């Protein structure tokens, strides 16, 4: 693993380029550079097909860049470990909520007692205690995604990668879950979790993220990194009426429109 330049960062991407064919003239991503700080939520915003999910697969280590470096840092004595929340419901439909969460702990050399303790704390954190013995088919979309998030958080990852996790949810469920998720990620006393959040929805990105990386579908690189500059604890209803939110929303919309 490459050494990271800044100790405040958990992840650094340096001029990362990727193409599925391996040919540089067919790059999907070109010279992508940004960093993720400890305990920070970074949004990747761009139109559909601009390479956001490919970038996340690169960070997750499913695929590897042809050019550039992805530097990952560990802290608190733990090795770097990322965990994913997928766009589609990825729960194993034959396992109960409890067993689905425990799946992410299988490869760890923990005692069953410790696993149970972690799963119980996740059930509590994500307000899933009443559903622990239910099968995914018995849950609503919002609850399914809560289970997926609990499963991703259970191994205490350094970086939580979220690929449009709210896209399949209705507006109300999405709002509640987004607010809960921000609290969980940023107010987690047991560990410092950072997160990369992929979306094509500007409002989601502003509400959920501390910084937003705008992907340019034309140059396949980073157009701009925008600081959201909103308080850590956010109330969606208040936020939607604030002039800062509206101005930022307008600016991002215009920038994205210019890119397409």
């Amino acid at each position: 693993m490459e050494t990271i330049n800044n100790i405040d960062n958990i992840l650094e991407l340096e001029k990362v380029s990727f193409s599925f064919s391996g040919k540089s003239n067919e790059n999907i991503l070109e010279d992508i550079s940004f960093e993720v700080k400890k305990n920070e939520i970074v949004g990747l915003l761009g139109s559909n097909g601009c390479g956001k999910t490919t970038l996340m697969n690169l960070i997750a280590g499913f695929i590897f860049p042809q050019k550039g470096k992805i530097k990952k840092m560990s802290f608190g004595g733990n090795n770097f470990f990322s965990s994913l929340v997928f766009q589609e419901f990825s729960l194993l439909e034959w396992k109960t909520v409890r067993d689905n969460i425990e799946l992410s702990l299988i490869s760890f050399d923990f005692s069953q007692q410790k696993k149970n303790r972690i799963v119980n704390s996740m059930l509590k954190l994500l307000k899933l205690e009443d559903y622990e013995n239910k099968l995914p088919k018995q849950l609503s979309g919002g609850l399914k995604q809560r289970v997926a998030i609990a499963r991703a958080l259970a191994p205490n990852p350094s970086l939580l990668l979220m690929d449009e996790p709210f896209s399949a949810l209705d507006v109300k469920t999405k709002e509640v879950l987004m607010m809960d998720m921000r609290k969980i990620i940023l107010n987690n006393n047991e560990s410092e979790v950072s997160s990369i959040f992929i979306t094509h929805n500007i409002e989601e990105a502003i509400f959920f993220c501390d910084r937003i990386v705008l992907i340019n579908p034309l140059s396949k690189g980073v157009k701009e990194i925008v600081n959201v500059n909103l308080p850590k604890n956010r109330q969606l209803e208040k936020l939607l009426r604030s002039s800062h939110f509206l101005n930022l929303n307008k600016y991002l919309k215009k920038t994205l429109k210019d890119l397409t």
Partner: protein
Amino acid sequence: MFNSEKIWQWVSAITIFFYIWWIGAFIFQNPFIPNPFEVIFSSVNLFQSGEIFVHIWGSVRRTVFGFLLSLLIASLLGYVVGVSSFLKNYVSPIIELLRPIPPIAWIPMSILWFGIGDASSLFIIFLAAFFPIFTSVSFGVASLPEVYNRVSIDYDLTVYQKFIHIIFPFSLPYLFSGCKVSIGFAWMAVIAAEMIAVNSGLGYFIEINRVLLKTQYVIFAMIVIGLIGYVMNKIISYLEFKVVVWKQ
């Protein structure tokens, strides 16, 4: 599982069937078309002597054994081929060539290879049951959604852990579908094999009574075959209902 309406439908359908059969036998007045009452009364002798049970047991034993052998080998091969596209490319052409050959076409060769007896009939049953299970399992495993592969990579699952927690449970509905088709094929194959390759079982019973012109026994044995085939299918459906709970 059964409600009164369904039972009523069954009873009505069977009664109508027997009625049509009885009218047919009455019209044709042919000694080779016994009426339903002759068939039912003649069966009393078979039950009293216990002869029919010997043949039923012979056929069921062969079918179950051949089916289980096929289940073991076909599912194992199905999992290996489903996981490995490399192996699939080599195994598929062989399977596609062998699959269209009816199991009955193998009977002459099986007699030459294994002689008259259980071994040759087991070989036929094995072949009949093999392809539906193999095809279902390999297709099921190959259709594992990509997101489950990524889940297994993300959580660092070993090959064994991935098989136990993801591939095997995911493939169970496919395995049961294959088994339901397979048990029917195996049951049909055992009857055909017993007519030629063995000296016991319902197939043999039908053949010997055909020669003796005891058509009422032949038809009674056919009814028993239908009933047992139905029960076998129901047993597998029941197991599927109990095991694949997430699909109910």
